[in-house]
């Protein structure tokens, strides 16, 4: 904060003295205002605040004491320092009167330049410090107000977020319970028809039925994947120390994960532990493994390997396959929702699996990526904070 110039009021009926005192005080570099009588002094006071008033006692009409009395009557100037300047032998009684009226000091004529400067500069400094403190108080008050306003905005946003989450919850509930029921009927009855009535249909009829069944399965997968994607936002994100090998065992048993004939999954020894949400990380690993075993050339026996690498408090979980690989031009794209690249006819999918991995990794304070070339297999990785 730059210091503002302080105002100094000089009140004297003799122009010569005014000029002399002004000349002495000029060196302080402050703003000097002059008045030649008490009334003028009061008018000046109405216009601005003063750091100090130098008041001549002996003036015709309203003298210095009377002027001081009037000044003090206004609450605004109750504390403005007044230095009386007096030319002749002032009695102790008079001086006492001056102090009673609020004088902070007396100076006798002729004034000694150095003493006048020193005394006035003390009050100038005081006034400047007071101004700084006042400004700081105003700033703080403003800041507090701003803070309170921001808090209000945050509370409102939180409320909106809570409502949005509630709606998402309702939506997910409805999708997972209500939308899936008719789908199940579609899928179930097309299966019943295929199992019990296939012989009554010609080849075309069976083909159409197969298509109905495939479409209902596809839609069931889509709703399931979308629900999982939505669930990421709602999961509790308190990180836990997760042992990856144990989690992998759960994933394999829970999802009825079936290795293709001859397929191999190698989990290396001594995997590092990570800080994560086990449900989400399980979901990520399950999706990565599914892809690793799915996107394989027809004549190739799938071979997948999992290990971890530790650097600077982070753990990278790597899933290496010997699949068809991904063109580096598509590496970013594969993590987007509904994105599918390569020969999409050959491999079924919803285009959500890797979007789930990317979003879940991000929500767990990590990130993911892929190293791959067409025909050279893929190495997907998730990087997460290491467990202590």
């Amino acid at each position, binding site marked *: 904060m730059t210091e503002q110039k302080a105002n100094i009021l000089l009140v004297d009926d003799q122009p010569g003295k005014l000029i002399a005192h002004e000349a002495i005080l000029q060196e302080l570099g402050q703003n000097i205002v002059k008045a030649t009588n008490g009334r003028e002094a009061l008018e000046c006071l109405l216009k601005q605040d003063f750091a100090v008033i130098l008041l001549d006692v002996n003036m015709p009409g309203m003298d210095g004491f009377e002027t001081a009395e009037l000044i003090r009557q206004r609450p605004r100037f109750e504390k403005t320092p007044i230095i009386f300047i007096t030319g002749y032998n002032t009695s102790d009684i008079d001086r006492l009167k001056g102090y009673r009226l609020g004088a902070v000091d007396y100076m006798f004529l002729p004034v000694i330049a150095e003493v006048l400067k020193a005394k006035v500069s003390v009050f100038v400094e005081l006034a400047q410090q007071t101004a700084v403190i006042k400004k700081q108080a105003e700033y703080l008050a403003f800041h507090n107000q701003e803070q309170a306003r921001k808090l209000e905005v945050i509370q409102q946003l939180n409320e909106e977020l809570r409502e949005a989450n509630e709606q998402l919850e309702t939506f997910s509930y409805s999708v*997972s*319970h209500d939308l*899936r029921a008719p789908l199940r009927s579609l899928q179930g009855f097309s299966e019943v028809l295929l199992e019990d009535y296939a012989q009554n249909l010609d080849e075309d009829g069976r083909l159409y039925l197969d298509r109905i069944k495939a479409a209902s399965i596809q839609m069931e997968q889509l709703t399931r994947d979308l629900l999982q994607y939505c669930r990421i936002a709602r999961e509790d994100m308190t990180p836990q120390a997760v042992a990856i090998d144990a989690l992998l065992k759960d994933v394999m048993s829970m999802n009825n994960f079936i290795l293709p004939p001859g397929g191999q999954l190698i989990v290396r020894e001594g995997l590092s532990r990570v800080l994560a949400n086990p449900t989400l990380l399980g979901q990520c690993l399950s999706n990565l493994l599914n892809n690793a075993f799915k996107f394989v050339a027809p004549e190739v026996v799938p071979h997948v390997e999992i290990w971890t690498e530790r650097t600077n408090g982070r753990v990278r979980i790597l899933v290496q396959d010997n699949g068809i690989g991904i063109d580096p031009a598509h590496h970013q794209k594969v993590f987007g929702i509904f994105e599918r690249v390569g020969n999409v006819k050959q491999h079924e999918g919803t285009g959500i699996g890797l979007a789930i991995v990317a979003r879940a990794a991000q929500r767990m304070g990590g990130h993911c990526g892929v190293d791959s070339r067409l025909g050279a297999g893929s190495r997907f990785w998730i990087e997460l904070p290491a467990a202590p």
Partner: protein
Amino acid sequence: MPAQRILLVEDLEDDVFFFKRTFKRAEVYAEIEVATDGAKAIDFLTRHAETPPDVIFLDLKLPNQNGFEVLAWLKQNPALANTKVYILTSSGEPREQQQAKEMGADDYFVKPLLPEQLREALARH
């Protein structure tokens, strides 16, 4: 294995059909009673308190009373201490699975129930 007595609490006609068909496909013979909502299930179990079913398959989304409310009633009924309660529902929401587990459900299946899942579940009784 003697024929088991089973109560299915399920409001959707199609799902009742698929449930019964799963028994056929698994070649499991059982007496299947169906209650189409929670109140009817509770009413049936109250009337047959002396001869409770061996296994109850309970849907979670039911009219009037939801499956969790029915589950709470089942779990505090001493007559059903030896009856297995399996949740059979549309939703694979982990939170619902967790809640069912905490409330004492013996297992949780997402529809449709597969023949091998059925055989395995009944073998546990």
